[in-house]
C-alpha cells in the first residue's frame, strides 16, 4: 500500500519529490497560462489609446 502511494506520488509530480521544486514548476507554468489568459481576455482592449 505504501509502495503504491509512493509510486502515485512520484507519478503525480513527474518523478520529483521535493515540494519546493514542484511548486516552482507549477508556478512557472501557472504564470505562463495567466499570461495567455490575460492576453486573450484583453485581446481587443486598449486599441483606441494612442497615448497623446
Amino acid at each position, binding site marked *: 500500500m505504501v509502495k503504491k502511494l509512493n509510486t502515485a506520488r512520484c507519478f503525480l509530480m513527474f518523478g*520529483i519529490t521535493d515540494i519546493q521544486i514542484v511548486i516552482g514548476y507549477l508556478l512557472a507554468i501557472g504564470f505562463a497560462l495567466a499570461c495567455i489568459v490575460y492576453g486573450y481576455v484583453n485581446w481587443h482592449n486598449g486599441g483606441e489609446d494612442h497615448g497623446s
Partner: protein
Amino acid sequence: MAVDPLTLVAVTAVYLLMVIGLGYIGYKKTKEHDDYLVAGRKIHPVVLALSYGATFISTSAIVGFGGYAAYLGMGVIWLTVLNVGIGILLAFVIFGKKTREIGHRLGAVTFPDLMGKQYSSRFIQSASSVIIIIGMPLYTAAILIGGARFIETTLNVPYDSALIGFAAIVAAYVILGGLIAVMYTDALQGGIMLVGMTLLLLLTYIHLGGVVEAHTALQALSDQIPASLAAGGHTGWASMPAFASPIWLTLITSIVLGVGIGVLAQPQLIVRFMTVANTKAIHRAVAVGGPFILMMTGVAFTVGALTNVYFIKTQGQLALTAAGGNIDSIIPAYINASMPDLFVIIFMLALLAAAMSTLSSLFHTMGTAVGYDLWTVIRQERCSMRVTQIGTVVMIIASVIVAYGLPGSIIARATVMFMGLCASAFLPAYIHALYSTRPSTRAAIISLVVGAAVWFIWTAFVHLAESKPLGLSGLLFGADAVLGMPWQVVDPLVIALPLSFVALAGVLLWERIAGKSGDVPA
C-alpha cells in the same frame, strides 16, 4: 563535433542571409530619427513579444544559467517563476502599459530620455546614460565572448576572427537599420530559439527514457554530490539546497532575485514598450511572451540539471566534470555528445540567434545612450541620426575591447552584475516616475545615487565572487572581502535595492513633513 562542416556552414549562411535581409528591410524603413530610436512606434505585438523575449534571453540564460542548473540543480526553476511572473506578466501589465503611455505623451525615445523628461532633469537623463555606458559593456562583452566561443568551436574559426566578425555582422544591421532592424531580426531569432528549445526538451526526455524516468534518475544522483558541494548545502539536483546555506544564498539572492527582479529595470527592454502604437499591442504581446519565456528558461534549466543523468550514464561522471570544470561549456558539451547532427545544427543556430538578438539590442541601447542622451544633455539640442550611429560605433568598439579583458565562466556572472546594477539604480525611481502624479526629482536622484553607490561598494568590497577578482578590497583593506559569511555570498542587489527604495521613501517623507517641493534645478 560530428556534424558535417559544409552543412553547418551552409545553414549558418542561409540564416545570416535572412538576418541581413531583415536588417535591410529595417534600413529601408528607417527614414527618421524616431524610426531609428523607437521603430516608428508601429511595431506588431508578436514582434514586440518575440523581440522582448529574445533580447531578455541571451546565451546567458541558455548556456550560462543552464550550466548553473547542471551545477546547482533544478532549484534554478525559481528563476523561471520570476522570469515569467515578473519579467513578463508584471513587466508588461504594470510597467509596460504606463511606460508606453508616458513615453508617447512626452515623446521619449530611450529609457534615460523617459526618466529625464518625466523628472524634468538633465542630471537624471545623463546619470542614467552614464550607468548604461559604464555597466552595459560588461554584459555586452560577456554575450560577445559566448557568441565568439560558440563560433570558434562549431565553425572552426579562430577566436579573434570570430569575435570581430560576430560583432561586425551585428553592428552592421544595428548601425544602419536601427531599432526596426533589431526588432525584426529579434523576432526571427526568437522563432529559431523556440524551435531549438522545444526540440531540446523533447529529445532530452526521449534520450533519458521518459519524463518520470529522467527525473527519478536525477533524484537518485543525490549520493554522488561532491563533498565540497555537500558542505555548501547541495542536497541533490532535483531538490533545493539546504535553507540559508551558502549555495542556497547564491541561488536565491544572485540567480533568482538578481536576474528575476533585475529584468524590470533593463533599459534595452523598457524601450520596447515605447515601440508599439497602443495598449492593445502590449496586451497581445503578453499572451506570446509568457509561454515564450517559459520555453526558453524552463527548458534550459530542466535540461541543464538533467545533463548530469546523461553524463553519469554515458561517461560515469557529473556534467561539470565532463565539461572540463567550465559551467559555460556544459550545455554545448551535452548537445554535441547526445543530440543528432541535424539538431546540433538547429540548436547551434538557436544559440547564435540568442546571442545576436541580445547583442543587437545592447549595441542599440548603448549607442543611443551616448549618441542621443549624452549628446542631448551636453549640447542641449536634439541630435541627428548620424550622431546616434556614431555613438553606436564607439560603444561597439568599447565592448569588443572589454571582451578581450574578461575571464572565463563569466557569462552568467556578468548578466547578474548588470541586472543587479540596473535594478538597484533605476527601479525605485522608474516606479516612482510611472506611478506618481508629481514625481519628486530630488527623491529620484538620491535613490539613483544610493542604489548605484551601494551596489558598487557591496560588489567591490563584500561579495566575494566579484570583490576577489576586482582586487580593490585586497588593495585597500588587505582582505578579499571586508565582511565574513554569510554576507560574502549575498548578492549586492539584495542590499542595494532595498536601500535605494528606502532612500526614495525617506526623501518623499521628508519633503512631505518639511513641505518641500520635489523639484530641483534641471
